[in-house]
């Protein structure tokens, strides 16, 4: 058993876009569906952060299936050019839990150019926030254009930051063509069900 024998979902996106909030929604739903899930968070800053992360999934995921991986202040390298330390962590998961179904790999917060190495993630979600500016999709960053699913989060903040959701939707359709995207508010859970459906369909039943 090794990293090649388990489904891997990558979650990338800029700092503060809601990657962790999405992981916190996604993991319980996957566990509820009967999956054994592992979680890797890149660039947690202290051991205390790692402990908090383990506590938040305490009833859902065994402690030895939650791991923090430091990427030497190079979050994009850790998921793209050299994912070896993330793959090593997944190998350790599969050695301890041979029946593992899926591993969620959350990238450290990065820029719009971050994409996942296809050997690290079978399916790659990119999370942006409307509060980062309504022009994010039309900048055509590789993360936005190449992700298997684009998640546009914090829709509740749109009126407070002069972001027009219609403009974001129009630009996203233009830059992504037929590739899917979902509007979410991970805080209250709206749109998250649709994200889970995509992951279910494209990863777990693929």
């Amino acid at each position: 058993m090794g990293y090649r024998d388990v489904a891997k979902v990558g979650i990338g996106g800029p700092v503060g876009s809601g990657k962790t909030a999405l992981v916190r929604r996604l993991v319980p739903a996957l566990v509820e569906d009967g999956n054994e899930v592992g979680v890797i968070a890149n660039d947690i800053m202290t051991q205390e952060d790692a402990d908090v992360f383990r506590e938040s999934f305490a009833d859902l995921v065994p402690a030895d299936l939650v791991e923090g991986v430091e990427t030497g202040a190079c979050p994009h390298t850790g998921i793209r050019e050299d994912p070896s330390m993330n793959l090593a962590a997944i190998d350790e998961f599969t050695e301890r839990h041979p029946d593992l179904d899926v591993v969620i790999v959350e990238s450290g917060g990065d820029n719009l150019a971050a994409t996942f190495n296809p050997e690290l993630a079978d399916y790659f979600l990119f999370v942006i926030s409307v509060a980062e500016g309504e022009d994010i999709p039309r900048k055509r960053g590789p993360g936005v254009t190449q992700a298997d699913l684009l998640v546009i989060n914090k829709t509740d903040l749109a009126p407070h930051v002069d972001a027009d959701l219609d403009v974001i939707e129009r630009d996203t359709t233009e830059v992504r063509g037929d590739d899917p995207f979902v509007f979410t508010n991970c805080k209250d859970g709206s749109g998250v069900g649709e994200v889970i459906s995509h992951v279910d369909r494209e990863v777990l039943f693929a």
Partner: protein
Amino acid sequence: METEPGAFLTALRLGDSFLPVGGYTASYGLEQYINEDRIEDGDDLRALLAAYLRRVVGPCETVALANAHAAARAGDLDRLLAVDERLHAVTMPREFRESSTKAGAKLCEVLLAGELEGGEPDDEADADREGFATAVADAVDRDETPGHYPVVFGVVAADRGLPRLEACLTHAYSFVTGLLGAAQRLGRFGHTEIQTVLADLEPVIEAVCERHVDDDVAAMTSFAPLAEIMGMRHERAGRRLFMS
């Protein structure tokens, strides 16, 4: 004697941060020195890295690499495993051991196991060489040996015909550039200042490799108590961007 072109390219490949073995995640205690404000300028950095070279990279890792190289040339797996075991025993901080064994396992995957798949050996010597590389990769994969980075590095170098001293120089150089890169990401060092520190350390790299390339495996030792304490404190540091 001139280095063969293929071996020279192997040296470049092994010394390049492009090699995907996770080297950029290791600081070998440097992050903790910076967390504790013990490294503030280029002079501090130069002094620290010179000490790493003289007390760890030379008498410990270079000795391991050189002896692993010799064991690989002789096709002596038991000797190689003894080198690996000794390096494991003399590397005290847990995170130093983990950074080294994780990178070693990835180097095995990328350059020993990965490139052996496909292609029949040309002759008996080629088959022996491939057989040894496969045996090492298998032993590491099955956790029968820790698979430290300098040990696997020595096997790869021997396998590709890179001479022992050149292999040791390549390893020591990449150790230094790896830590200088880490220092730039953690502190505030200019790129020209970093290049000056690197240039100043080149004679040290040369001296420690020449001094230790012929050492017996029993001489393998490291003496860097403060670096080891920094490595251990890093386990519960207030800031951790690096795995070690």
